[in-house]
């Protein structure tokens, strides 16, 4: 009785507080779950707002037209920020969509709160070849030994460089930096070109770059049991010092810039070197920037370390079994060679289906095959840890900002380590 009252009070307060933001988003959070005749309509939320969203819309449209399971996918695309704000409220208010595409880093906290359905039986469906999925990609959706998410896209951070600026700075445009040290040397030369040209941009919310740098230098966020922070180390200090020297002291790039602003600099052709995901490709092509893409720089020549990330399909627990069947039909369609190839080629994404990777068009595409090379050795970063998104937002991103602003790196590291301990202990 008491618990029920708390729930009711909570729902009223949460909905009232979220009302403005939901209204501002201007999207319909109502789950359209009606079945007209034999057709099952399933609602689908995701954050593919860029050109990748256009490809996704086309795939969904084709599926709605051609599928023989009488399923209609009704899609709502919003920014990932909006998605992450709306979904928890929608789940609590029992207005969740039937299925979602979600970033792997955010999944564990939903699973730990019991809001996502187990999807292990998807691989037992007829027409689904489990062995066709790369095991690293499949395991991204496994939390505590159970499958909660099915791959939709895998990605990593890659090295982008502006060939025109390389030439101007007297660098070989076909020889990108291979190590973090080479990156610093090249970035310094480019930043001297003047006219607002930046050598390298490290966004203040660039946790993905930071995690790769930390991993390359041998630093760890948590100990092996993931119950205590392991950030306080010489390797972390080395990583923080490297970034501070590069941005704050050598001034090769802007000190206080967001990821979106850094993207714009690269898209405007005034940034020499940048690290980002595959989604930057379409904008660079559209803006006719003469650029190259390579596997991520390493601490030492010959190392092969990178973080594997991606987006997976998930189903909130509120979705009925009938609709789950309909969702499986769409997810099965998505994981066919034809769609996998289309998604990889048009969005310049590394494939995760072996049949797609073996396709001759995929092999012939230089950008996709370069990315695929990295996917081969990339590993997920603390997979299934429910605290990761909290640590990223509230500890690592603010620490990056402090490092770039010139704060003492030792005290930033110690303070971040303390905060991680506090997060892991649940305080």
């Amino acid at each position, binding site marked *: 009785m008491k618990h029920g009252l708390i729930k009711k009070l909570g729902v009223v307060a949460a909905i009232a507080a979220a009302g403005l933001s939901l209204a501002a988003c201007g999207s319909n959070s109502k789950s359209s779950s009606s079945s007209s005749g034999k057709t099952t309509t399933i609602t689908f939320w995701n954050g593919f707002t860029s050109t990748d969203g256009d490809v996704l819309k086309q795939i969904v449209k084709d599926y709605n037209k051609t599928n023989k399971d009488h399923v209609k996918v009704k899609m709502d695309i919003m920014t990932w920020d909006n998605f992450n704000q709306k979904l928890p409220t929608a789940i609590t208010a029992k207005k969740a969509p039937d299925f979602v595409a979600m970033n792997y880093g955010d999944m564990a906290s939903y699973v730990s709160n019991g809001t996502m359905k187990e999807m292990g039986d998807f691989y037992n469906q007829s027409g689904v070849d489990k062995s066709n999925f790369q095991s690293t990609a499949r395991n991204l959706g496994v939390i505590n030994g159970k499958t909660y998410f099915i791959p939709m896209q895998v990605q990593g951070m890659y090295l982008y460089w502006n060939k025109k600026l390389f030439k101007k700075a007297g660098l070989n445009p076909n020889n990108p930096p291979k190590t973090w040290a080479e990156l610093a040397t090249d970035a310094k030369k480019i930043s001297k070109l003047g006219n607002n040209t930046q050598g390298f941009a490290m966004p203040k919310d660039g946790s993905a770059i930071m995690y790769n740098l930390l991993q390359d230098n041998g630093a760890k966020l948590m100990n092996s049991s993931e119950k205590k922070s392991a950030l306080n180390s010489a390797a972390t200090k080395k990583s923080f010092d490297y970034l501070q020297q590069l941005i704050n002291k050598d001034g090769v790039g802007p000190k206080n810039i967001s990821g979106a602003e850094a993207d714009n600099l690269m898209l405007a052709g005034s940034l020499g070197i940048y690290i980002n995901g595959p989604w930057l490709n379409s904008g660079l092509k559209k803006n006719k920037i003469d650029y190259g893409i390579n596997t991520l720089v390493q601490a030492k020549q010959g190392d092969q370390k990178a973080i594997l990330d991606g987006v997976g399909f998930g189903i909130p627990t509120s979705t009925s079994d009938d609709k789950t069947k309909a969702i499986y039909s769409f997810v099965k369609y998505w994981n066919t060679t034809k769609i996998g190839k289309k998604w990889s080629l048009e969005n310049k994404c590394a494939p995760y289906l072996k049949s797609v990777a073996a396709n001759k068009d995929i092999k012939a595409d230089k950008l996709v095959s370069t990315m695929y090379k990295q996917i081969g050795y990339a590993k997920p970063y603390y997979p299934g840890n429910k605290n990761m998104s909290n640590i990223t*937002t509230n500890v690592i991103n603010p620490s990056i900002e402090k490092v770039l*602003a010139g704060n003492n790196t030792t005290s930033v590291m110690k303070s971040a380590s303390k905060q991680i301990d506090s997060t892991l202990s649940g305080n």
Partner: protein
Amino acid sequence: MEEIDTSVNKKRSFFRFWNQPKHAAYLFMAPSIIILLFFMVIPLVGTLGLSFFDINIFFTGTKFVGLDNFIQFFHDQRAINSMWHTVYFTLLETPTQVIVGTIAAAALSRTTLFNRFSRSVFYVPVICSLTTSGIIFSMLLDPNIGWIPYVLHQFGMSTPQFFRDASLAMPSIAVMTVWKNFGVTMTIMLTAIQAISPSLYESAEMDGANKKQQFFHVTIPQIIPSLGFCVMTNLIGSMQVFDQIYVTTAGGPEFKTESAVQYIYSRGFSAPYQLGYASSVATILFVIIAVLSISANLYMSHKEKQMR
């Protein structure tokens, strides 16, 4: 026949009852009371209730923690800082807006074509969305693509990092907010100034008072109630600042422009989704706003009495 009479009589007595002014008043108040109840009172009580629980947005693992959330607030440096930032913003924004609005109203009080045109122009930002205004200012002040830094650069000045420099960010947000909202204050003050009897100015003029003296000794005392209203509403609005910060700096750099409402929002509606703790900070903010508003109200009432 008798049954019909009874029914008609019942109807008549029903309408007679609600036609009496003392009863009809409740009918007129009902819509407002219902709205206030559902959108203010119930969420307020709900928020207060939640602040005593360790509860996340998914309502899983709920635990009664008594005053722990309130105690946690006093050990949470980011939360305390967000309160200070809110107070700092209020101190910058409220007086500036009231002063600018009052001066504009005094300057435009005479009904001429130019003044009417100017009043409309000054009111235009009020009807723009705060989010849109935030985006416009972000672009105008951007050190790379912004028009204002470009002009300053052309005059040989260094390019200020308006929203990226910790010392400039909050004043920049305050200036943007004043630009956006001073039209409301101006309109209220204009109505108050136009209601002042011209005979007061005539007497002051006969006594040899110049324009400045007339403004401070005739205009200001006469508009004290409206001034008090503007101070109060601006104070409450400033203490709840959110949109413009969210759009322009998102609380940065290094959380130095993070407001209390923004902190509450980030605690409750993003990881770690601590709805209980966020509610306790909201309750503390509510108490602070209530104390400030009541104090401001008492002060203005006292001033009003003194002026009379």
